């Protein structure tokens, strides 16, 4: 083996330990009796014991279940809205000259750069008037801003990659826009649609700034986790955090092949 490979292995292992350690700690806390972790000045780092007590108590405490469900609902609204808006926008952008469409994409990414907190504060004022404050739709509408540019960009890429003239062929064969989409276009842009959906879903799941400002009293999971932590109540939160984190990690690992730099960068270069 070459020297440089040995060095690579050593570095990779060190980095792997750093990246996995916090997750390990979360799992440890969740399954270890409190007497070995929180109650000690120097908590044990190796699994000496195993208990499900923490889990049972966290599941019995219903106060975190509602925020998790709320987060799930919001994430689905955000993802579905992202699919609808970005499919339409991507389709349209692909049809107009790239000089013009690039400008629109840049504009959208620019909007994306505006700080969430700067936007969230005035939006919360408007949402109070519109009845969207402390409301899942309010959070979803605001979070949509975070995902819309990248979603549009991914969908534009999807439409650009379609075989030349395939949509024209559907029209010549007698299809209108709706049947074009239903029978040919949607099946062909399946992959970008899935990526868009999952990215939007995960972004919403993770989003904190809009959520805490627009819906403080009907919090999503991140916001209520923050409440627990700031109240100094980490016992329940940790097993709960683990519970909701594991499925997302599984999704991410599963989706690894789609989470490529190309999808996230292509548009900025054009």
């Amino acid at each position: 083996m070459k020297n440089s490979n040995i060095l690579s292995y050593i570095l990779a292992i060190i980095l792997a330990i750093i990246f996995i350690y916090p997750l390990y700690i979360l799992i440890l806390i969740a399954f270890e009796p409190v007497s070995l972790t929180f109650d000690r000045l120097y908590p044990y780092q190796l699994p000496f014991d195993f208990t499900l007590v923490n889990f049972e108590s966290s599941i019995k405490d219903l106060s975190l279940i509602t925020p998790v469900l709320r987060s799930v609902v919001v994430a689905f609204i955000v993802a579905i809205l992202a699919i609808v808006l970005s499919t339409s926008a991507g389709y349209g952008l692909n049809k107009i000259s790239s000089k013009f469409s690039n400008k629109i994409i840049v504009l959208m990414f620019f909007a994306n750069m505006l700080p969430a907190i700067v936007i969230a504060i005035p939006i919360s004022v408007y949402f109070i008037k519109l009845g969207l404050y402390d409301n899942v739709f309010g959070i979803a509408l605001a979070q949509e801003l975070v995902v819309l540019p990248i979603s549009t960009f991914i969908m534009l890429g999807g439409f650009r990659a379609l075989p030349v003239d395939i949509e024209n062929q559907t029209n010549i064969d007698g299809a209108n826009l709706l049947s074009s989409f239903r029978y040919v276009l949607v099946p062909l842009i399946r992959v970008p649609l899935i990526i868009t959906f999952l990215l939007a879903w995960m972004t919403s799941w993770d989003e904190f700034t809009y959520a805490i400002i627009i819906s403080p009293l009907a919090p999503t999971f991140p916001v209520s986790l923050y409440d627990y932590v700031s109240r100094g109540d980490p016992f329940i939160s940790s097993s709960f955090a683990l519970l909701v984190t594991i499925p997302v990690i599984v999704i991410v690992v599963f989706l690894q092949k789609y989470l490529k730099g190309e999808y996230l960068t292509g548009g900025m270069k054009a």
Partner: protein
Amino acid sequence: MTYKMELINLKKSYNSVKVLKNLNLNVNEGEFLVILGPSGEGKSTLLRTIVGIEQLDGGKVMVDGKDVTNRPPNKKNIAMVFQNYALYPNMTVYENIAFPLKMAGMNKTEIKTKVNDVAKLLKIEDVLDKNATRLSGGQKQRVAIARALVRKPALFLLDEPLSNLDARVRYTSRQELKRLQKELNYTFIYVTHDQLEASNLADRVAVLHDGVIEQIGTYNDLYEKPATKWVGDFIGAYPMNFIDGNVLNYPDKIIGFRSVWTTNGDTIKAKINLIENSEGNYYVHCTSGESNIVIKTKDQYSVGDDISFDLTRFNIYNNGVLEDVKLTEYYKSEPS
């Protein structure tokens, strides 16, 4: 089920580039019309505007006497076969062919009969269950044709459908396309840059140049009587030769002749630059006066020799336009 089509004053430009400039063309019922032209002359654009996937800037498309210009593509009843066939990759061959019928709202049993009939006609029955992406080039082309045929449209537009095939398949496909068109008596409008295809397939050939149909006629017409110098230059394995009219006492005119329209004589003199040997004949590239010309001969020459010849026939061009066709009587009996 055969229709005629008239194109009246078609206009189309991209940005400031005019691609079609008042183009006029009549296509007869049941005719196999080939639109021939070099790449980049807007042949594809012409088909696209006819079928309606590109918007015309002006002009009218009349099918069977009815103005269909402003109908969307899905209401025009014109079929088109694209160069890359544009088969639906998410469907089987059967589903591809059935798609236009499904869009027309036909019931399943009827669709099945029609798809099977057309598959038999094109000899693709045994690939019907395959995915459209898993076919050979020749099969894809047949499927594309089948999909166009199955709905019995008013007109067929074909955009270089053979250009993606390899030579052997291209030959058989060409024969079959011709047979199909004659058997079914459909009106075909076929775009190509390949003169061999044009001469083999076409009832009439329309030469597209500079946004208009520069000449329309049988391939022989185009070969023997090119209406303009440009057509003469474009048609034929070798471009038509053009020399100064003074040589034959036509001052201010240009004489045009094919390399095979020559015989022994001493009216025209030239100097040889290059000799090509082709199956017992020699194509001699030479310079006569200011012009570079090619003549066909059976005699052997060497580069640098002087050569002289007479013409068996020639065309007279005035300002680039055909003015007169001369068949030189006393040469006519001699073989060229």
